[in-house]
C-alpha cells in the first residue's frame, strides 16, 4: 500500500472547502435575476379542492406569478411515477394512484403542494402564498395502517381497493407449512418498525433556470443522482428533453436516501422558470422537510420462526404491512419487497421461508428508501426473533446463532439471494471479544448496586448492497439498469480527472476514488480530481445509494483505469523499445521490468497528446471510459453488540457500550469506513430509542414536524463507538469491496432493543423505546421482583 493508496487513512481532499465555509450547496447558488418560489401546501390530510382563488396573491408586492395544478396539467407536465413494477401474487400490477406535482382536485397529506408563488424575495413569495384562497371540502383522514385496510374504510385512490397497492409474496408457503408442522419449538413476535424522517441536515432545495436564448433548462438540486433526475424529468414529466436539460447536484448536505427521489418542487421550479421568465429558487424550511421529504420504514409485522429439537432453524413465516403514505414515491415499491424479503434468511441456513407483504395507502407523507431501505426492517425481524428464541430455548444468543450460521459459500437462500462470501463467526467472535461479553454478568451486578438495570443485546446482520446486476433487477421489475459509469482522463501534464456517476454527499468519494487512481498510477492524490454531480460533465451515472459507490462506482473506474493503463503501456513500450508485457507503472514512473529503463509518467501522458511518436495506427490522447454492471449483489455482514443501563425510576436508557464488527471486504480508507459506521449506528440508535413520526390519527396532522418534537440523536445521547472490521473478499467485483454506507443503520436497532429487553426481562417493548415505555416496563419488572 502506498501512503495515499488503497488501505491508507488519508485525510479528505474535500474537507478544506467545508471547514472554511466554502462548500457550495444549492441554496448558496445565485444567478442573475433570480427570484424565489414558495409553495402553497395543504393544511388538511385529506380534502377536495372545490376552487382556488389566486387573484389576491397575484396582486401582492413582488409577485411574478401564481401557478396551480391546472396550468401544470395544461402544459402536459406528467404525474410523478414509481419506477419499480411490483405485481401482486394474483398477477395484477401494483395500483398506482395519480400523483401530480401540484394537486388539482384532491390533496392526500398535510403539506402536499397545490400552488406555487414566484416573487422577487423569499419573504414576498411566502407572504403571497398565504393569500391564496382555497375552498376546501374536508374528507376523513385515514392514518392507521390496520384501519386503512379494513373493509369499508374510505378508499384514497380509485385504483386501490381497500387501499392495498399490492399483496405480494416471496418464498414457498407450502414448504414453510411443512417445516412448521414438524417444529419442536416456534418463536412468534409482533413487531413495529417505526416511521422515521431522514433529516439530512441540508433541507432540500432547487434552482430552476430556463434560458430563452437557446431554450435550455438548468436545474441545481439537492440530489444523490442527478442523471436519474434528468432522465425521469425528461422521460416522464415532459419538462424538457434530456439534451436540453442540465442537472447539477453541487455539494449536497446529506441524503440518506431522501435525495434519491425526484420531488414536485424540482419539477415545478424548472417549469415555473419558463412560465414566469425568471430563474426560480426554492429552499425548504425544516417543517417543509418534515412534511414532504420521503419518510422511511413504517412496517407492522407478524413473524414466526420454527426450530427442531436440536435448535436448528427449520422455517420462517413473515407477514408484513408496509405504509406507503398518500402516494407511491419513486422507488417505494422495491423497499418492502426485493430489498426486504430477500434478506429474511439473515446469516442463517433456513430451509423454508415465506414472506407476504401488503403495501398500503394512508393520508401521510410518502414513504421510500431511507438508509438501509428494507434491510433494517428485515434485520429487525430476524435478530429480534433469534434473540427471543434463544431466551425461550434457554440457550445463549451467540450459541443459537453459531449453530445456524451459513458456513459454506456460495449459499443459495430460499429467497432469491446467493451469498457469495462471508465469515459470520469471525465477526461474532470479534464483537464479543471487543465487548468483553464474558464480563457482562459482573458489570450487571455492579450496576444493580447503583440501582441500574443493565442489559446486553446482539445483532448479526446481513445486507445486500451494490445494487445490482441490471438484468437481475430488470427481471424483478426495476425500470432502470443499475450499473455505473466512469471516465478517466489523463491530461497532457499527467494529472488525472475521473468523471463518475457516483455522487458524493458525505461519502468522501473525492478522496477514496483518488486513492484508487493513486494506487494504480502511483500519482499523489492532489494530482487527481474527481468530477461528479453535473450532467454536462459526466455522461451518465446511476447515482449514490444502496452502499454502491465503492463496489459499483469504483469498479467502473477500475475498468477505465485498465484501459488507460493498457494504452499507456503500449505508448511506453513503443517509446522505450520494450515489450508491452514488461512495462510497470508505479510511483509516477513507467519502467521496463528488470532494467533501469524508465520514463516519468508525464512523458507518456504528453506523448499521448503530442502524437509525435505513437505506435502505428494508435489514436492520440489518453482518456478512457467504462461501464460496470455488477455480477451479483454484495453481502456486507457483521455483528453488533449493545449494552445499556436503565434508570428504573425515570426509564432513561443510557448506551454504555456499543461495539460493531463489520465485514465490508476490502477497505479503501479505513478512517472513512469507520465514519460511515459511526453515522449509521447513530441513526439506528435513534430509531431504537428516540425517533418516531407521530400523526394525529383523527386529523392526520404531523405532530413531530420540528426538532422541538422529533427527537434527533445528539452528542450527549450517544457514547463513543468501538468499531472494527474483519475481511472476506467479495468475489463479485475487481476490488473485493462490499460497501459500508448502510450497515450501521441496519445492524443497530435490534442490538439496542435486545439489550433493553434483556435489562427489563420483558420482550414487549416497541421502537422507539422512549423513557416512558421503558419506565412502565421497569415498574412491572420491579413489581415482579418484589413478588418473587
Amino acid at each position, binding site marked *: 500500500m502506498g501512503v495515499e493508496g488503497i488501505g491508507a487513512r488519508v*485525510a*479528505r481532499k474535500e474537507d478544506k472547502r467545508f471547514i*472554511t465555509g466554502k462548500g457550495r450547496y444549492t441554496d448558496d447558488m445565485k444567478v442573475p435575476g433570480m427570484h424565489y418560489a414558495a409553495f402553497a401546501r395543504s393544511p388538511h390530510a385529506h380534502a377536495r379542492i372545490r376552487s382556488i382563488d389566486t387573484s389576491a396573491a397575484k396582486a401582492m408586492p413582488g409577485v411574478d406569478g401564481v401557478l396551480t395544478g391546472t396550468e401544470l396539467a395544461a402544459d402536459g407536465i406528467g404525474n410523478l411515477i414509481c419506477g419499480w413494477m411490483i405485481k401482486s401474487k394474483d398477477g395484477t400490477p401494483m395500483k398506482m394512484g395519480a400523483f401530480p406535482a401540484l394537486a388539482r382536485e384532491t390533496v392526500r397529506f398535510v403539506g402536499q403542494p397545490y400552488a406555487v408563488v414566484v416573487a422577487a424575495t423569499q419573504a414576498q413569495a411566502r407572504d403571497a402564498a398565504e393569500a391564496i384562497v382555497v375552498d376546501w371540502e374536508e374528507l376523513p383522514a385515514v392514518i392507521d395502517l390496520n384501519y386503512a385496510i379494513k373493509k369499508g374504510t374510505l378508499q384514497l385512490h380509485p385504483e386501490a381497493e381497500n387501499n392495498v397497492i399490492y399483496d405480494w409474496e416471496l418464498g414457498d408457503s407450502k414448504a414453510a407449512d411443512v417445516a412448521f408442522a414438524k417444529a419442536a419449538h416456534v418463536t412468534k413476535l409482533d413487531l413495529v418498525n417505526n416511521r422515521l424522517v431522514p433529516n439530512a*441536515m441540508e433541507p432540500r432545495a432547487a434552482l430552476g433556470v430556463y434560458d430563452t436564448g437557446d431554450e435550455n433548462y438548468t436545474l441545481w438540486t439537492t440530489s444523490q443522482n442527478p442523471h436519474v433526475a434528468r432522465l425521469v424529468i425528461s422521460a416522464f414529466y415532459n419538462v424538457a428533453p434530456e439534451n436540453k436539460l442540465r442537472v447539477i447536484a453541487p455539494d449536497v448536505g446529506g441524503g*440518506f436516501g431522501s435525495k434519491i427521489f425526484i420531488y414536485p418542487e424540482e419539477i415545478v421550479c424548472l417549469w415555473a422558470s419558463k412560465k414566469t421568465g425568471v430563474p426560480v429558487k426554492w429552499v425548504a424550511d425544516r417543517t417543509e422537510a418534515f412534511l414532504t421529504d420521503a419518510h422511511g420504514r413504517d412496517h407492522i409485522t407478524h413473524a414466526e420462526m420454527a426450530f427442531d429439537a436440536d435448535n436448528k432453524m427449520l422455517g420462517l413465516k413473515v407477514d408484513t404491512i408496509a405504509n406507503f403514505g398518500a402516494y407511491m414515491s419513486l422507488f417505494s415499491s422495491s423497499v418492502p419487497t426485493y430489498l426486504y424479503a430477500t434478506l429474511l434468511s439473515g446469516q442463517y441456513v433456513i430451509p423454508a421461508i415465506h414472506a407476504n407483504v401488503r403495501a398500503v395507502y394512508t393520508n401521510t407523507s410518502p414513504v421510500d428508501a431511507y438508509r438501509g431501505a428494507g434491510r433494517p426492517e428485515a434485520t429487525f425481524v430476524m435478530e429480534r426473533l433469534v434473540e427471543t428464541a434463544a431466551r425461550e430455548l434457554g440457550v445463549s444468543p451467540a450459541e443459537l446463532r453459531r449453530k445456524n450460521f451459513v458456513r459454506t459459500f456460495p449459499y443459495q437462500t430460499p429467497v432469491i439471494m446467493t451469498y457469495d462470501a462471508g465469515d459470520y463467526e469471525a465477526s461474532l467472535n470479534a464483537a464479543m471479544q471487543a465487548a468483553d461479553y464474558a464480563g457482562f454478568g459482573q458489570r450487571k451486578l455492579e450496576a444493580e448496586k447503583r440501582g441500574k438495570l443493565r442489559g446486553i443485546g446482539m445483532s448479526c446482520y446481513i445486507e445486500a448492497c451494490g445494487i445490482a446486476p441490471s438484468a437481475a433487477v430488470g427481471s424483478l421489475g426495476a425500470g432502470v439498469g443499475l450499473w455505473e459509469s466512469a471516465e478517466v482522463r489523463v491530461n497532457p501534464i499527467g494529472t488525472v480527472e475521473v468523471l463518475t456517476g457516483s455522487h458524493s454527499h458525505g461519502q468522501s468519494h473525492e478522496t477514496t476514488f483518488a486513492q484508487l487512481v493513486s494506487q494504480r498510477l502511483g500519482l499523489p492524490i492532489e494530482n487527481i480530481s474527481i468530477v461528479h454531480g453535473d450532467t454536462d460533465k459526466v455522461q451518465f451515472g446511476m447515482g449514490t445509494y444502496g452502499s454502491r459507490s465503492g463496489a459499483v462506482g469504483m469498479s467502473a473506474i477500475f475498468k477505465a483505469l485498465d484501459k488507460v493503463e493498457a494504452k499507456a503501456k503500449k505508448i511506453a513500450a513503443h517509446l522505450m523499445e520494450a515489450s508491452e508485457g514488461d512495462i510497470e507503472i508505479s510511483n509516477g514512473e513507467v519502467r521496463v521490468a528488470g532494467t533501469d529503463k524508465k520514463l516519468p509518467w508525464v512523458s507518456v501522458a504528453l506523448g499521448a497528446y503530442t502524437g509525435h511518436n505513437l505506435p502505428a495506427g494508435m489514436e492520440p490522447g489518453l482518456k478512457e471510459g467504462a461501464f460496470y454492471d455488477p455480477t451479483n449483489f454484495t453481502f456486507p455482514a457483521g455483528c453488533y453488540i449493545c449494552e445499556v443501563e436503565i434508570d428504573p425510576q425515570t426509564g432513561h436508557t443510557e448506551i454504555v457500550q456499543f461495539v460493531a464488527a463489520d465485514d465490508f471486504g476490502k477497505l479503501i480508507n479505513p478512517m472513512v469506513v469507520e465514519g460511515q459506521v459511526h453515522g449509521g449506528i447513530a441513526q439506528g440508535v435513534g430509531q431504537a430509542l428516540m425517533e418516531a413520526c407521530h400523526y394525529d390519527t383523527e386529523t392526520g396532522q404531523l405532530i413531530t414536524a420540528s426538532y422541538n418534537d422529533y427527537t434527533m440523536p445528539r452528542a450527549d445521547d450517544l457514547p463513543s463507538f468501538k468499531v472494527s472490521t474483519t475481511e472476506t473478499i467479495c468475489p463479485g467485483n475487481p476490488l473485493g469491496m462490499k460497501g459500508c454506507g448502510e450497515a450501521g443503520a441496519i445492524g443497530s436497532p435490534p442490538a439496542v432493543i435486545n439489550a433493553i429487553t434483556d435489562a427489563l426481562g420483558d420482550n414487549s417493548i416497541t421502537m422507539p423505546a422512549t423513557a416512558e415505555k421503558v419506565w412502565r416496563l421497569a415498574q412491572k419488572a420491579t413489581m415482579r421482583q418484589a413478588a418473587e
Partner: protein
Amino acid sequence: MTKVTITVNGRAESREVEDRTLLVQFLRDHVGLTGTHVGCDTSQCGACVVHMDGVAVKSCTVLAAAADGTQVTTIEGLAKGDELHPVQAAFREHHGLQCGFCTPGMIMSAVDMIRRYDGKLDEKTVRYELEGNICRCTGYHNIVKAVLAAAETMQGGAKKAAA
C-alpha cells in the same frame, strides 16, 4: 427598512434591509458569505452558529437590526489566510465531518466551547456542550475526538505562549 452596519470578519458591512431580516440572511443573502447555514427553524440544529461580540450565537435567531453595531465572525473569518484555525485542522485530521453542512456551526461552537473552558475539556463535557448542534452524518464520534484534540493543541499553544 433599516440601515444595518455589522462588522463581519473585520470588515464593516452596511446594508439597507427589511426589519424582519435575520442575521443569517444578512450574512448569506446580503453580504454573500454562504458558509453559515440554515438547518432548522427552531434554534435547535446550530448550523447557523457564528460569533457575535466574541460569543457563539445562533444567527437564525437574531434580527440583523438587533445585531446592528456588533462584531461578527463567521466560519469564513476563522482561518488566518492559508493557516487553518486549530479546530478546523482537527476536524480534518480526525474526520469530524462528512457532508459538511453542519460543520461551520459545529466548528464555531467548538471554538467558543474551548475558549469558555480554557481548553480543559473531557468527552462528557464536550458531548453536553454540543447539545445545540445536530449532525446527521458522523454520529458525533469523530467530532468529539476533533474537539478534544483541538482543545489540547490550543491549550498547548497557550502554555507555550505563557512560558
